[in-house]
C-alpha cells in the first residue's frame, strides 16, 4: 500500500490539472485499508507527506475507510458496479467516509481523481 500511495503521489505531482483543481486544498486525509492507517497530508494540492499509523494524535479532516480487495477492484480499468466510485464502495458496504464531509464535497473532484491515480490504466481522470 505504501508503494501504491507513493506512486499516486508522483502521478499527482505530474498531473497539472489536478494540481490546479487542488490548489486550495491543504488538509490531512485518513485512508484506512484493512485497519491500517495512512495519513495523507496535502498542501496546496500537492501530497506533502504520507505517514503510516496507528496514531491517536494525528488530526484529519475526513477519512475513507475500506479494504484492500475493494481498493483493488476500484483500481481495475473497468470496475464492476459499486466498485467504480468511492461513494459506490460506501453504497455496497465496502467503504465508509466520515469526518468533515463538506470538506470532501468541496474538493470532491480533486479527491476522487486522486484516488483514481492508481487505476491500472491511464483513464483515471474520467473514471474517478
Amino acid at each position, binding site marked *: 500500500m505504501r508503494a501504491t500511495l507513493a506512486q499516486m503521489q508522483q502521478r499527482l505531482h505530474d498531473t497539472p490539472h489536478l494540481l490546479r483543481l487542488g490548489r486550495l486544498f491543504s488538509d490531512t486525509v485518513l485512508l484506512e485499508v484493512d485497519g491500517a492507517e495512512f495519513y495523507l497530508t496535502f498542501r496546496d494540492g500537492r501530497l506533502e507527506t504520507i505517514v503510516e499509523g496507528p496514531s491517536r494524535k494525528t488530526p484529519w479532516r475526513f477519512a475513507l475507510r475500506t479494504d484492500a480487495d475493494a481498493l483493488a477492484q476500484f483500481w481495475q480499468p473497468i470496475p464492476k458496479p459499486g466498485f467504480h466510485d468511492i*461513494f459506490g464502495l460506501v*453504497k455496497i458496504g465496502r467503504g465508509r467516509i466520515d469526518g468533515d464531509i463538506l470538506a470532501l*464535497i*468541496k474538493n470532491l*473532484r480533486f479527491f*476522487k481523481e486522486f484516488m483514481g491515480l492508481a487505476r491500472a490504466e491511464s483513464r483515471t481522470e474520467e473514471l474517478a
Partner: protein
Amino acid sequence: MSFEPITGRYLTITVQGRRQRIYVEIAGQGAPVLCLHTAGADTRQWRHILNDAELTAAHQFFAFDMPWHGKSLPPECFQTEEYLLTTEAYMETVLAVSRALGLDRPILAGCSMGGRIALQLAALHGDAFSGFIAIEASDFQPAWYDIDWFHRPDAHGGEMGAALVSANISPHAPQAERWNTLWMFMQSGPGVFRGDLSFYTRDDSLIGRLAQIDTAHTPVHLLVGAYDLTCTPEDARRTAAAIPGATCTMMEELGHFPMSEHPAGFRPFFADALTRMKVSADV
C-alpha cells in the same frame, strides 16, 4: 456547413399562475415522444436521440428545458425566491408544455426525476399520454447527502454537483460524453440542482400511487443502468414490481444518465422501449 436536424424554439406557458418561457428542441416526424431531462441538467441530455436518423424517421421527439434549467428562464421575480420543485408544479409544467405543443397523447420518456414524474403522470394523468418510458426511475430515495451542500456562498454548487453525480456514470461511458454530461451539472444555475433534489429526495407520494397505473391503456417500461448508485437496479425492479403490467430492463454497462453518458450503449434499449409502447398502444 451542415446543421444537425434538431430545431430549437421557445414558447410561453402558464404554470401555477406564473408565465414560464420554455425552450424546446424538436426533431423527427411521426409518433410524438416528449422527453424529460434529469435534475440539475437540461435538454442537451437527449441530443443523441434527437439526432438519430432511424429513430426520428418514425418519431417526433420534443425535449424541453424545465423552468430555471438550460435555456428556459426562471419566472419573473425569481431573484428573491427559493427554488424548490414540487410534484404538482412539475406535473403541471409537463402537461402545459404538451398542450402548448399540440401533442396528442405523446409517449413520455423521462430520466431520473423525469422518470419519477413520468410515473406520477402515469398514475394521475395517464389519459394524457400513450405510454411511459421511465429511465433510472423509482418510487422514492431519500438523500444520503445534504442537499444544502449544493447551494452555498463559499463553494461552486455546479462543480460539487458534477463531482457527486459522476459516481453515477458508468466506466464504460466514452470519456467525451462523460464530461459533456457533467458539464451540464457544472453549468446549472445556483440552487437549481438543490431545488430539484428537494422534489426527488423528499416527496414520497408516488409510492402509494404506483398500483393505480393502468398499463393496459398506457404501457410502462423501466430502464435502469447497473452503475446507477442513485436509482439502483433493485430500486427500479421494486418500483416496476409495484406497477401491475410494467416491464423493466437492466442495462449492464450504463449509469444514471444513459442517453447522454453512453449514447451508443443506450440506443438499443431505448429503441426497444419505443417498440413496447407501440405494441401496447395497439391493444
